[in-house]
């Protein structure tokens, strides 16, 4: 086995790094908080790489496990471990945080130490949530990460930031307390908070349905799914660029991850019985929210709605699997779930990149309104090229990562019901429409006004950030095999759990 507790290191390095920044900020001759943050985030990213390189792909078992007693009175363990689903999401988190630290380098002038510290602490908590194998440990991370995000939106956000951040906190808290009650109930039944033990716990259908709904409230708010999505556009619009990026790229994934780790394996029968509901909600997100995105005058809002639509694909991929398996097609079901997970990672890159693009323009113009722009390509050709790539990826162009996940989910949907696949496929039209129409209005045309005429193209730092994301989008787009290989065994195991009745 490995000698180093990599998961603990990846969780606690950024958290302690954040504390270090806060303590150092008062001292004289301290290195700037920005450089400490960059150093810590790079070290964390480096520490997370062995999780990938030393990962054994052939097994669904949890790897890099650490287990020690935390609260002995209630049998709560500090139990960490990753499988093929959580490991890529952890890498996504560490990767994105580096970019976010870079993106906030110059823009953030008000209390940069607290800003950087908040993101680092947030990073550690998110990784903790992805790698926790004890339900209470998961819950603690899951709730605690609201605090830094709450502060990030509230302190460094736009004019309506207070409304947005309070709404964000209350919505998510609302969702999670029901999950807490469900977890306590499961603990009564299983006698342990181990998530893996809960996976094997037999539960009656009635209880399963109640637990399923408790989980659904928690995760649907986080994903977010229609109709509990309304906090997301507000939060995204008001958050600083870095906050939007983390929110879209990582925090939304926590909701989807919750479905995979909790809902599907713990309540497979209820999930099966209610899959129509989940499919319906996902399709509403894809089609209806797609139309809503089309009419947004605000770029950040548009991308926020497009996030909801894309996350609908992920949930569709997870829950369509029941119908495909009912038809006896295991490979099709695997395709759907894997497509959903690929969509998660890909959406992390693309939406993060788009929010960064809007941030680049906002830093120069202090406006997010599409109407204030036009002809940006004349002044910022390099930037326009990057944004072109991300807009196309967002609309699902083959060769980019956006295509892979969507295509897999649509393909698997065809195996069960033409109309579900048809509705899901409308996203290819809608996604192209809202992404490219926005792109056209903002980037092309003649130079709209004097402010646009005064724009400078992106500098080294911005080029590096966008370039890294562009590379990731293209790499995942043309060569998704490594990601699929990593998650393969885990997804097969998950499907086995989903098909095994626990009644």
């Amino acid at each position: 086995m490995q000698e180093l507790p990599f998961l603990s290191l990846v969780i606690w390095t950024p958290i302690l790094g954040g504390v270090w920044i806060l303590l150092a900020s008062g001292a004289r001759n301290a290195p700037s908080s920005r450089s400490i943050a960059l150093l810590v985030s790079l070290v964390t990213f480096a520490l997370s790489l062995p999780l990938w390189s030393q990962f054994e792909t052939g097994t669904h078992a949890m790897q890099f496990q650490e287990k020690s007693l935390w609260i002995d009175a209630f049998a709560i363990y500090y139990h960490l471990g990753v499988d093929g689903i959580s490991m890529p999401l952890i890498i996504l988190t560490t990767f994105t945080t580096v970019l976010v630290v870079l993106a906030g380098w110059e823009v953030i002038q008000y209390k940069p130490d607290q800003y950087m510290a908040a993101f680092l602490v947030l990073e550690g908590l998110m990784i903790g949530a992805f790698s926790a194998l004890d339900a209470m440990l998961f819950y603690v991370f899951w709730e605690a990460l609201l605090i830094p995000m709450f502060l990030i939106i509230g302190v460094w956000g736009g004019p309506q930031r207070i409304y947005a951040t309070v709404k964000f906190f209350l919505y998510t808290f609302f969702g999670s307390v029901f999950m807490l009650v469900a977890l306590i109930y499961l603990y009564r039944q299983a006698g342990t908070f181990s998530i893996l033990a809960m996976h094997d716990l037999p539960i009656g259908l009635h209880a399963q349905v109640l637990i399923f709904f408790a989980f659904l409230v928690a995760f649907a708010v986080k994903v977010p799914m229609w109709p509990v999505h309304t906090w997301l556009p507000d939060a995204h619009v008001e958050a600083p660029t870095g906050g939007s990026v983390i929110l879209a790229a990582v925090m939304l994934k926590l909701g989807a991850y919750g479905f995979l780790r909790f809902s599907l394996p713990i309540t497979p029968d209820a999930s099966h019985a209610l899959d129509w509901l989940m499919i319906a909600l996902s399709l509403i997100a894809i089609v209806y929210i797609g139309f809503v995105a089309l009419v947004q005058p605000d770029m950040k809002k548009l991308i926020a709605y497009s996030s909801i639509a894309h996350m609908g694909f992920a949930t569709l991929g997870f829950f369509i699997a029941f119908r495909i398996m009912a038809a006896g097609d295991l490979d099709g079901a695997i395709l759907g779930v894997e497509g959903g997970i690929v969509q998660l990672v890909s959406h992390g890159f693309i939406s993060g990149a788009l929010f960064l693009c809007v941030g680049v323009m906002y830093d120069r113009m202090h406006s997010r309104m599409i109407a204030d722009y036009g002809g940006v390509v004349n002044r910022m050709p390099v930037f326009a090229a990057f944004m072109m790539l991300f807009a196309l990826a967002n609309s699902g162009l083959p060769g980019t990562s956006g295509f892979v996940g969507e295509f897999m989910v649509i393909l698997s949907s065809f195996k069960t019901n033409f109309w579900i696949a048809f509705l899901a496929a409308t996203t290819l039209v809608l996604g192209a429409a809202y992404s490219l129409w926005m792109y056209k209005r903002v980037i092309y045309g003649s130079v709209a006004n004097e402010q646009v005429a005064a724009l400078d193209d992106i500098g080294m730092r911005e080029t590096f950030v966008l370039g890294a994301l562009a590379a990731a989008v293209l790499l995942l787009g043309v060569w998704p095999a490594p990601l699929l290989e990593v998650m393969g065994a885990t997804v097969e195991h998950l499907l086995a759990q989903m098909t095994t009745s626990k009644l």
Partner: protein
Amino acid sequence: MSFTTPDMAPATPELFLLAAACAVLVADVYVPQRLRMLTYHLAQFSLVIAAGLCLALLPETPQVTFNGTFVADAMGALLKVFILLATYFAFFYSKIYLRDRGLFKGEYFVLGLFAVLGMMVLVSAGSLLTVYLGLELLSLSLYAMVAMNRTSITASEAAMKYFVLGALASGVLLYGMSMIYGATGTLDLAAIRGHVAGLDGRNMVLILGLVFVIVGIAFKLGAVPFHMWVPDVYEGAPTSVTLFIGSAPKIAAFGMLMRLLVDGLPGLHGDWTGMLIILSVLSMGVGNIIAIAQTNLKRMLAYSTIAHVGFLFLGIIAGSEAGYSASMFYIIVYAFMSMGGFAMIVVLGGAESEADRIVDFKGLNDRNPWYAFLMLILMLSMAGVPPFLGFWAKWSVLREVVASGMTWLAVVAVIFSIIGLFYYLRVIRMMYFEKVEQPAPLSVGADMRIMVSANALAILALGVYPSGLLALCVSALAG
């Protein structure tokens, strides 16, 4: 009936504190004004020694003395230690507050010591008489403390209100006790317990007595619908007194609840559970909802206390040993959180002004990020957000409620805690999101800084690693 000298040993901490309080009183008379600080130091010293005695004399098995009127057991000892610890902190914060306002008098600490003695007697009560004795000693000292600032009209009003309503509650409690005495023929709680266990069928006098006793307890704890005095007293009293009322006496009131209901009347468990459920749901609902409308932080924390009392009842309702220890954990945690919150008001206040409005916290992050951070910990802990200690307090009572099969009650409780979150967030929003034109830096003494930091950081540290404190509460009630 022959009179034998009772065994004094189990009551050593109480006897010591009585002697110490008298000694402090006498010493205070002879101390010149410029050495008044000596009174404070003597009082703090007595608290430390009393706590040491409690720990040193920790009984292996419950010991009963004074003809059954006094019980020394593990639960009592633990509660006493935390009462003394909370009072130590409260006296410390009081010192700063009173000194800044020219209210620094020796009587304050003498009254405080007598209140502590009352609380210790209360949590060790073995008979109805002892309960009443301890309760009155506590209450009378507190009435006087509230009225300490004689020039303040609001303080006098609060003291009056507190006295009248408190006396009424004591009367109701006493009336209930007389009925229980009438039904069982004894004042001794252990004997009452035996008598009730031997009853077959329902005894209406006993039930009626129980109702009055519960009303009395609800009054003292401030549960809805007997909560009316809480906001006025909390707001009107000097902050240092509010801080004291909100901490140690709540722990003592929990002790009273345990002695009367769990030790004395477990046979009526089915009856008092129903009453407590109503009180609990009402308290959580009214407390959390009305707190939203408050603009004064002391008032807001008063309503939050009411809501917390509702949560406290949940563990008792669960009716298991684990449930009682969860409630005990809850009240101890709550005492220290609320004390930290009021201490922040002391920190922000100047010599002339009180910083007790929520807007006084505006821009605190710009004025002093450290105190803003401490207040963030305290507020989120009260709201029950992990990883702070308040979360584990809520968690442990919810766990027992679910265990007792009342999942619906747990759902109700969490819904109200979502509502509660809103007003705690408002304080954080004032500190972090609102800006002031010219942030005035805070001037806080080093000793205050250390104590407040220790108070709030303990909430964070114990939240990350609550194992020890939880185990302590479990072991205190086991067996």
